[in-house]
């Protein structure tokens, strides 16, 4: 199983613990992540301003993977939706692809034929590895932990471009991945909430309140940690949590962990190797609880 590893802008600079833990997990399951230094920003932040520019950026990245004959795997919901949407648009409208290619050839001498498959890493775990195989490999089940899935909107929507693999009103794949760890799923009602990240730079108070509502709900529901699969969502719930707690005068202190960190822990990797020290809200109590469950470890 070989994939061109699409890191995007945020993860390799600001959310390195996600990359570290994903690499460990990938190794364990025989997923080969090929480093591709030519990849750039996916185009997501540009789409609202210039759809054409975003498509060109996507096409360029897709063309790079196509040259290497590799499918793309990403860790970021923003990257995955942008690349998949570009593919979807090109497939629906070959003329558009032709127009984009004319410009792409001029700027970088590349041409995209439209053959590259793109997947989120969590989807690779769910579809290519599978729940059963994950369960088989778990050495330290997270029994007694209440974990709240956070899908992030772009992991499964727009459902049209994802062939409706997850129900847009009630997604289930991350719930199953969490249950595979031996944990209990909590806060299900808010699992598909929007973090507000896309408008953080536009209307901060609204964005922070969107995040606050889910954090508050999970804290009230005795959640041990929120499970994220998107760096933007983590920036909101983890990176901005102290700010949110302060402005809403509410003690939150809810760890926000990447699924890959939790899977790594359950597979037996030490927390240091999974970047647990880099989460902004320190998961100290969480790790103590884990260590207590396995005193002989």
């Amino acid at each position, binding site marked *: 199983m070989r994939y061109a590893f699409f890191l995007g802008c945020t993860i390799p600079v600001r959310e390195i613990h996600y990359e570290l833990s994903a690499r460990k997990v990938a190794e364990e399951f025989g997923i080969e992540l090929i480093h591709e230094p030519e990849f750039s920003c996916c185009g997501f932040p540009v789409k609202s301003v210039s*759809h*054409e520019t975003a498509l060109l950026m996507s096409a360029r990245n897709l063309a790079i993977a196509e040259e290497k004959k590799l499918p793309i795997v990403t860790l970021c919901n923003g990257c995955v939706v942008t690349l998949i949407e570009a593919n979807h648009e090109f497939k629906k409208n070959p003329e558009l692809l032709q127009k984009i290619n004319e410009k792409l050839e001029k700027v970088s001498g590349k041409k995209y034929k439209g053959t590259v498959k793109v997947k989120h890493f969590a989807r690779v775990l769910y579809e290519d590895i599978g729940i059963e195989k994950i369960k088989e490999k778990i050495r330290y089940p997270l029994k007694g932990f209440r974990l709240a899935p956070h899908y992030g909107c772009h992991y499964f*929507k*727009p459902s049209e471009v994802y062939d409706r693999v997850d129900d847009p009103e009630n997604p289930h794949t991350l719930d199953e991945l969490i249950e595979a760890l031996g944990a209990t799923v909590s806060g299900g009602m808010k699992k598909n909430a929007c973090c507000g990240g896309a*408008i953080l730079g*536009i209307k901060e108070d609204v964005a922070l*309140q969107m995040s606050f509502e889910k954090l508050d709900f999970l804290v009230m529901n005795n959640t041990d940690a929120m499970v994220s699969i998107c760096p933007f969502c983590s920036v909101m719930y983890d990176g901005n949590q102290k700010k949110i707690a302060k402005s809403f005068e509410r003690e939150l202190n809810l760890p926000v962990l990447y699924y890959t960190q939790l899977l790594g822990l359950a597979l037996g990797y030490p927390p240091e190797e999974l970047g647990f020290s880099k989460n902004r809200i320190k998961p100290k109590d969480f790790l103590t609880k884990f260590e207590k469950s396995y005193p002989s470890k």
Partner: protein
Amino acid sequence: MEKTENLIKSEDLDLSFKYIVKNEPGGEGIMKCYACGTCTASCPVRAIDETFNPRRIIRMVLLGMKKEVLSSDFVWICSTCYICQERCPQDVSITELMGALKNIAVKEGYIHPGFKAQIQAIYSLGALYEIGEFENKKREKMGLPKLTSQRKEIEKIFEITGLSKIAKEEE
């Protein structure tokens, strides 16, 4: 005497606006809206901030209130969660429609400073965050492969689409 300053005057409307939107990628479905309000009722931004009202925005476009829509702050605060798009019984593709409105606003010279800052970062850094020696040293210590800035490639893309003009504008 009746107050008139808040009235919509027919001579101020641009009846071609809805066709401009319809021809913009993402805006194709606008004419199908029958104003049921499912979008507004579902919207998590609207639940907090009443200035954002997708149904109202669509009505404004259909009426031809071009300047009011394009110069507004509200077109910029869609969080792109896609709930409205998934639930719309008329397949208006509202999230994409909001994207189309933003794209038109930019062409007409209106861009939100928050988005402009993002564009400028990508234009000057090739990414949202800087990838330099400092970042690579940090990565190297953790055994992670080196990143290469693609600034030049992005610059060329921005030049050919004209987005570089906006990226180079002063505040």
